[in-house]
């Protein structure tokens, strides 16, 4: 069973049913299947040939993505805000890649290793991810699933599969910026609605749109969250606001695929608790509490990085950077933190060294450090502490402009502070721990 095969199946079974919709454009299953075939014919990729494309938040993304698979190519969706130089680098990198499997993907992420690299996800892994989600969350054909985040990231991309493989409807939004438009979707003639929201989006809705959430509560079948920690307070408030909805906290990463999910609306709001492994997944805890995952959903490896692959993927198991434990009684995974310096900003993984390297290339900056900080809405964000060169004046906007051409938008720190010096460890590295203690 493949995504494209299921779309074809529903194009025959329910041709007039809406498959994908976004602001003003809808495609029925019959139309979607026709456009996918046309796209495959246009692309004419060889078996296993990679094809990079910029991610758009619309029906066109699904057409291109599936069209690449249909002709046996490898889909490489890139961040829409990715600087041109980085895009060119990736295109070169993937053309030189060896051993790519037909109809699979390469997703670029910072996740497990803290450095940006291409993760190869096979078609078999995607099908297992979809079956995990269908089985645990309950995707059915009468559902309208709203995705409001970047489609090149696992969190949203993984929802295209169970939605369209169940014959349901996918509604694509760019983000949650236009909140009235988000709630307008609930007026569409569907009985059941569901969505995936990162914890910062849930906090945002609870803070400025609780009234609207209450109004649509009877229609919300389930909401899945993941990619970052959700607080107990937000879980409890969401349970109160949506008393009849199923609310899940999921453990997943690009490297591991979708592993566990915990229904906190049913079993209790416990921070870090992520439930039992899903049907195609296994989890164990290694040395120092490291979370190790295996099963059909895991990645095939990193592109052009055999040494890195051997470090993370050992004996068919993915060694994550997460620290956790498994309850002996109920077998549920509980996450406690990470063992590296990566900053999780609303589900996006930001490597502080990459930000510092880009910032210090600005002539007027003598030194800097990127640390986690707390923001009124998002919770954890990246903050840049910087030391201007003698006699230089640097404003946060100057730094932002400089970083825009060098980093993807989500990697640019949200907060800035000018300081006199940057504390370093005895061997000259930035003393991240000292700053993390001050700004949890």
């Amino acid at each position, binding site marked *: 069973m493949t995504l494209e095969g299921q779309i074809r199946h529903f194009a025959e079974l329910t041709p007039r049913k809406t498959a994908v919709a976004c602001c003003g454009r809808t495609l029925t299953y019959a139309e979607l299947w026709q456009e996918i075939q046309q796209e495959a014919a246009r692309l004419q990729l060889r078996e296993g040939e990679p094809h990079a494309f910029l991610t758009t938040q619309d029906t066109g993304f699904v057409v291109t993505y599936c069209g690449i698979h249909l002709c046996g190519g490898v889909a490489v969706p890139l961040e829409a805000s990715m600087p041109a130089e980085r895009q060119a680098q990736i295109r070169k990198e993937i053309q030189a890649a060896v051993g790519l499997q037909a109809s699979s993907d390469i997703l670029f992420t910072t996740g497990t290793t803290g450095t940006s690299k291409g993760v190869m996800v096979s078609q078999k892994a995607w099908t297992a991810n979809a079956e995990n989600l269908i089985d645990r969350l309950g995707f059915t054909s009468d559902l309208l699933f709203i995705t409001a985040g970047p489609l090149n990231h696992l969190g949203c991309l993984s929802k295209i599969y169970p939605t369209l493989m169940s014959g349901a409807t996918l509604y694509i939004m760019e*983000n*949650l*910026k*236009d*909140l*009235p438009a*988000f*709630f307008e979707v609930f007026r569409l003639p569907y009985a059941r609605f569901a969505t995936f929201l990162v914890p*910062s*989006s849930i906090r*945002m*809705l609870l*803070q*400025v*749109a609780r*009234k*609207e959430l209450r109004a649509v509560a009877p229609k919300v079948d389930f909401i899945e969250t993941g990619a970052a920690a959700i607080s107990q307070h937000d879980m409890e408030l969401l349970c109160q606001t949506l008393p009849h909805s199923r609310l899940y906290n999921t453990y997943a990463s690009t490297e591991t695929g979708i592993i566990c999910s915990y229904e906190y609306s049913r079993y209790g709001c416990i921070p870090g608790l992520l439930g039992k492994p899903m049907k195609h997944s296994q989890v164990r805890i290694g040395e120092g509490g490291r979370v190790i995952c295996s099963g059909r959903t895991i990645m095939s490896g990193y592109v052009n990085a055999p040494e890195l692959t051997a470090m993370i993927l050992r004996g068919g198991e993915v060694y994550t950077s997460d620290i956790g434990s498994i309850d002996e009684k109920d077998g549920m995974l509980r996450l406690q933190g990470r063992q590296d310096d990566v900053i999780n900003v*609303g589900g996006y993984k930001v490597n502080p060294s990459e930000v510092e390297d880009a910032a210090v290339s600005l002539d007027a900056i003598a030194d800097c450090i990127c640390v986690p900080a707390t*923001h*009124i*809405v*998002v919770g954890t964000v990246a903050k840049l502490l910087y030391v201007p060169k003698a006699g230089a004046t640097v404003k*946060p*906007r100057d730094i*932002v402009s400089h970083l825009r051409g060098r980093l993807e*938008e989500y990697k*640019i720190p*949200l*907060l*800035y502070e000018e300081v006199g010096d940057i504390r370093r460890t005895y061997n000259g590295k930035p003393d991240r721990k000292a700053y993390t203690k001050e700004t949890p």
Partner: protein
Amino acid sequence: MKEHITELLSKALPMVDLDSQFLFSELDSLGVTTILMLLSEEYGIELEAKDATPKNLKTIDSIVRMVEEKLKGQ
């Protein structure tokens, strides 16, 4: 008021060009929520999801107008 709001927002959202005539298109969901929350708190007004329209958040002047109208309506 305009000066104060500009100062408040520029600190919270240094990535955003507050002089833009197309401010709403520059904002992401975090930016929109931050504006609603900060101004609600600062001026003791109730700004909700329905206020986060492209029209209300088009420019810094339209944001100021939105706050003034909320204050009048109290």
